[in-house]
């Protein structure tokens, strides 16, 4: 591009130089060439200024983007701190105290439509393993439905039930069982 322009000005300048050799004082053609040259220099200066401005805007945009990415990352980290909701025994209804957590996830997922999550459903150890796989799926689906009702696209959501196979806390105390009856929003 730049080289091309230089070449073109040579093509114009060459006949001017040959004419200068056979006349005295600036001719009309010489003055015109001079005006042309000045205009070109001005254009070049303007172009450089425009480029500099563009670069500045781009840099600012990049900075803004980085800040935004950092914020998304921060939001994501915060959401990962609160990714679990707990259920009552043999139930799969979202308890009111966990709506706030799920609302935060929903808001984030709506703002970040490329972000996908897997919702895991888990149960305590009471009942048979196969029944608990079914119950765990119901819990995962309850969380999925809640997020979809809050505006999250179904393309961003999938579920898997682990039943009683991956307890968060080992043992069969009431505390352990309560910790194990859970739905977990896992960011991919």
């Amino acid at each position, binding site marked *: 591009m730049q080289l091309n322009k230089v070449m073109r000005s040579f093509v114009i300048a060459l006949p001017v130089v040959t004419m200068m050799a056979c006349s005295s004082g600036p001719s009309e053609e010489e003055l015109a060439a001079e005006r042309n040259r000045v205009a070109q220099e001005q254009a070049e200066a303007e172009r450089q200024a425009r480029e500099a401005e563009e670069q500045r805007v781009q840099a600012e945009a990049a900075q803004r983007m980085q800040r935004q990415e950092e914020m998304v990352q921060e939001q994501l980290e915060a959401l990962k701190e609160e990714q679990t909701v707990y259920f009552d025994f043999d139930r799969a209804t979202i308890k009111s105290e966990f709506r706030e957590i799920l609302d935060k996830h929903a808001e984030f997922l709506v703002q970040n439509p490329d972000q996908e999550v*897997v919702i895991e459903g888990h149960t305590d*150890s*009471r*009942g*048979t*393993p*196969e*029944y608990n*796989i*079914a*119950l765990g*799926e*119901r819990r995962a689906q309850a969380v999925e439905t809640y997020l979809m009702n809050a505006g999250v696209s179904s393309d961003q959501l*999938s*579920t*898997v*039930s*682990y*039943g009683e*196979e*991956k307890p968060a806390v*080992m*043992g*069969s105390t009431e505390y352990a069982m309560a910790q194990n009856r859970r739905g977990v929003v896992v960011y991919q």
Partner: protein
Amino acid sequence: MIKKTMRLWLAAALVLVTTGANASLEIVITEGVDNARPIGVVPFSWKGNGELPGELASVVRADLMRSGKFNPMAPDEMPQYPSTASDVSYSGWAGKGIDTLLVGSIEQQGGNRYKVSYELIDVLRGQATGGKRGNDHVIVKREAVINASDFRQYAHRISDVVYEELTGQRGAFLTRIAYVVVKDRKTNKLPYQLVISDYDGENETRLLSSPEPLMSPSWSPDGEKLTYVSFENKRPQIFIQDIYTMKRERMTDFPGINGAPVFSPDGKKLAMVLSKDGNPEVYVMDIASKELRRITRNRAIDTEPSWTPDGKSLIFSSERGGKPQIYRVNLGTGKVRRQTFDGEQNLGATITPDGKEMVLVNQTKGDYRIARQGLEDGSIQVLTRTYLDESPSIAPNGSMIIYSTLHNGTQVLSLVSLDGRFKARLPASDGQVKSPSWSPFLF
């Protein structure tokens, strides 16, 4: 038959080259020795050079004890150590309350060959006739030549013969169990392990180790394959694996639940649970074509299918009536009938080999216990008093149930006889043990 035998020995050899699963099952009998029938299993006499290559009498004693039907006398309490019927002092044994006796001998025949002879003797009959009226008091007399490596298997064979002669029921000592071991997930990269062993916990072989859960192993009717669920790809998929070649095939990869696979009695189909249409439903898959047939159609949970021995019906657990109960569906007509009415919940049912009863998990007042119920008459008999019982599986002769339960905060396998009298625990040395499945007869 010969092919099967060969393969079994091959599997035994495989154990030697694979590393042990380190979960060896011990047995702790907790109930039922008192009502068991006394029997004397005399140490077999030994004619040969050096050490015996393996045990026979002690393995038979352990088998008979573990069956819940017999209470073998300890060798140091025996009045004498005969090796043939003609050596037996009948009154000595009768005086100790022993009415049946197993005696035998092992003779080295050069190289790796051993001649084993044994006799099962009716002590009271022998006492009455003085052993002089022919061989009328000898219930069984057998002889065989075996290799050094076959001692343990042959001992189980003797146990089968003794058991069948004395109870009229086929013995289940030449069978295996499959189960899942879960090691500490914090310290093991591959905590979930699919293991098979002889029915008594010997000869453990690990078929698969995984970072993600393994569930629901179940045997093919020829005892050569297992079907199970693996989460190794971060979602449940059903596999079939040959236990000899270790080759496996993935049978399903549907969205949602892919669970509870069980072979049909003819080995050609798998009953399973899929939730690809929204909620868990029972399906039957033709193994060769992978063609699916949907069996249940209900908005409630339907799961845990189990075949009737004739392959014409399935029983399954369903929440269609509120809490889970057992239902039966006729695969020909599609007709569904509820089977259980006692207790708050009934789940995880399997039908006994004679097709007359089912064994299930009964929940009453919050306790999950193993129970039995006739398919025709509806009364439930609770068999266990252990905590959080699940996954019952019945021995192929219908004598014993193996199941998973919680003992001192750890999942262990336990045994209970079908009459509920005999109870034992099989604690593992390392990890939680669950999802037991008893193999069919292997010979």
